[in-house]
């Protein structure tokens, strides 16, 4: 055995890692440009359109902007304030970036390559860095939880009130939203019967029924929760430029800030990947891609293109949403997570589990046609019912002003009590 050369499998993994990391970093840089364009267009401006090929006057609609942005932020002084915890301060961006990049080990970025005929390589070669990883989805979730540590460490180590508040908000928000995220995911895992993301994609391709249509409630819950996980508006309370001056990265500058910002975009890309892979069919498109595991080079390219296009569309949606709704207040955010999303996620899980449990028996008695009708109809019924119930059960006021209960000396000032009105509005708060 040749001890010096790595095996073809290791080489293939290295090539995939190189392509993926390079692609992701470039994508993150260009997504900054896209974000700025969308921001400008929504505000009726033109956005960055000057920087093109360096040292020439070719403008290329501003496509050189990421290079200029990156160069600028790298050349900035890497300033460390004197009051920070040096070790944690330096570790935070690294933890965050490492975790956000390692997530992609388990995320497929295409279908499979046609057989290459190289000895030692599995045929066909999948577009996935770690194809044998049986806990795919768990890996993704475990690492996205570790990424929260980066944010927390950054906020804590900064020794700054804004950073600290940002870190606190981030921890509360991410803990709250990981539960609906997991519930939305569990439905998919139950229906597909695997934790591997490529198997989940293949399942959707084989049945031709994307999970967004089979489990609409799970899709909506997962979509909203991934906005919160990626800390995008309307759930960007950990950063909240207007009130927290950037939140956990207030005290960062230069290349460390760049690492934070890149990780933030990678979060969004991860969220888009998960949404597309688990709910929007991955590389599958009816009548275009086919669904078998045997593909030509053209087919493999087509599938990769369709997956990328879907992911880009989801990211565009993320960016347009940013300018469409104002930020939630923190109590509204928590209400939404615990009182709306959690019950709806559980409801979806129960429905999916019931359908999967009784599917064989239903098929035996009612036939396959009626069974799939029920398997699609019931979730949609529950979706509309659950949504309407969630809406109707929401309190009809959003006023969170403190209730004024006059104290012993308030008679001098003749302050009217609002306690009676408040008691009528929230009878559950009246003490026995």
């Amino acid at each position, binding site marked *: 055995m040749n001890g010096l050369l790595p095996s073809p499998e290791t080489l293939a993994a290295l090539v995939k890692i190189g392509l993926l990391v390079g692609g992701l970093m470039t994508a993150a840089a260009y997504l900054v440009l896209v974000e700025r364009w*969308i921001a400008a267009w929504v505000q*009726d401006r*033109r956005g960055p359109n000057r920087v093109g090929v360096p040292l020439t006057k070719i403008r290329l609609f501003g496509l050189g902007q990421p290079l200029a942005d990156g160069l600028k932020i790298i050349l900035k002084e890497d300033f460390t304030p004197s009051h920070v915890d040096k070790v944690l301060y330096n570790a935070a961006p690294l933890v965050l970036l490492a975790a956000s990049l390692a997530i992609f080990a388990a995320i497929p970025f295409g279908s499979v390559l046609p057989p290459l005929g190289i000895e030692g390589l599995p045929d066909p070669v999948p577009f996935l860095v770690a194809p044998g990883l049986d806990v795919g989805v768990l890996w993704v979730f475990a690492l996205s939880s570790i990424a929260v540590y980066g944010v927390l460490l950054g906020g804590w180590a900064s020794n700054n009130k804004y950073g600290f508040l940002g870190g606190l908000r981030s921890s509360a928000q991410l803990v709250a939203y990981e539960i609906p995220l997991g519930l939305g995911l569990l439905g998919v895992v139950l229906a597909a019967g695997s934790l591997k993301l490529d198997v989940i994609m293949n399942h959707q391709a084989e049945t031709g029924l994307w999970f967004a249509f089979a489990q609409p409630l799970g899709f909506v819950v997962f979509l909203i929760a991934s906005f919160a996980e990626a800390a995008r508006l309307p759930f960007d309370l950990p950063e909240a430029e207007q009130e927290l001056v950037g939140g956990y990265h207030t005290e960062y500058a230069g290349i460390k800030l760049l690492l934070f910002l890149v990780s933030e975009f990678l979060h969004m890309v991860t969220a888009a990947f998960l949404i597309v892979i688990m709910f929007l069919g991955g590389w599958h498109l009816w009548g275009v891609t086919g669904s078998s595991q045997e593909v030509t080079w053209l087919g493999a390219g087509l599938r990769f293109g369709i997956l990328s296009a879907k992911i880009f569309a989801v990211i565009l949606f993320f960016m347009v949403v940013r300018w469409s*709704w104002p930020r939630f207040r923190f109590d509204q955010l928590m209400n939404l997570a615990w009182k709306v999303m959690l019950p709806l996620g559980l409801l979806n899980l129960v429905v999916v589990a019931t359908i999967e449990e009784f599917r064989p028996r239903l098929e035996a008695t009612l036939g396959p046609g009626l069974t799939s009708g029920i398997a699609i109809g019931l979730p949609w019924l529950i979706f509309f019912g659950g949504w309407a119930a969630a809406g109707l059960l929401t309190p*009809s006021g959003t006023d969170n002003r403190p209730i004024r209960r006059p104290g012993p000396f308030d008679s001098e000032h003749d302050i*009217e009590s609002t306690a009676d009105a408040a008691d009528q509005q929230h009878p559950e708060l009246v003490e026995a």
Partner: protein
Amino acid sequence: MKPNDPGITWLEEKPLGLAERLYLPLFVQGLTTTSRHLVSKKNTVNFPEERPAIGNPLIYRGVHRLNRDEEGRVKCVACFLCATACPAHCIDIVATESPWEDREKYPESFQIDELRCIFCGMCEEACPVDAIELTSLLDLTGKSREEMIFDKEKLLSVYDMTKDAEPMKSAELGGTL
């Protein structure tokens, strides 16, 4: 002010309607608004190549100019009305005896500090002979403070530059003469 002051009107938040509680109509509304703006006509222009529309250039208040009369002499009679009217004190005139028969004085030097000017147009209003005017030139730049103090020659050259596009005020254009 006490909370029960009669001058205070306490606004009560309206209870949310069905559409607001279901959230979906608002969701669609927000997305429609942003999508419409995404593709609508842009309000800004690619500046140096495209110029913004500034309405009527005759009433725009940009860089100053000193008008010339029919014989090409400076029209100003050094009456100091503009310098007196100027709220920013940016006009500096040195008057001397006129070499011409038709007026007593003329400005030996006439300086406007464009950095101090607030472009209010009072000088133009005050001028009894319509000698000083504000043009529609809006991109006023310079590399030093000294460069931004415009002297008589420069102000006359602004007139030469803009006289075709923006004719001097006359009786029919609302001038005093």
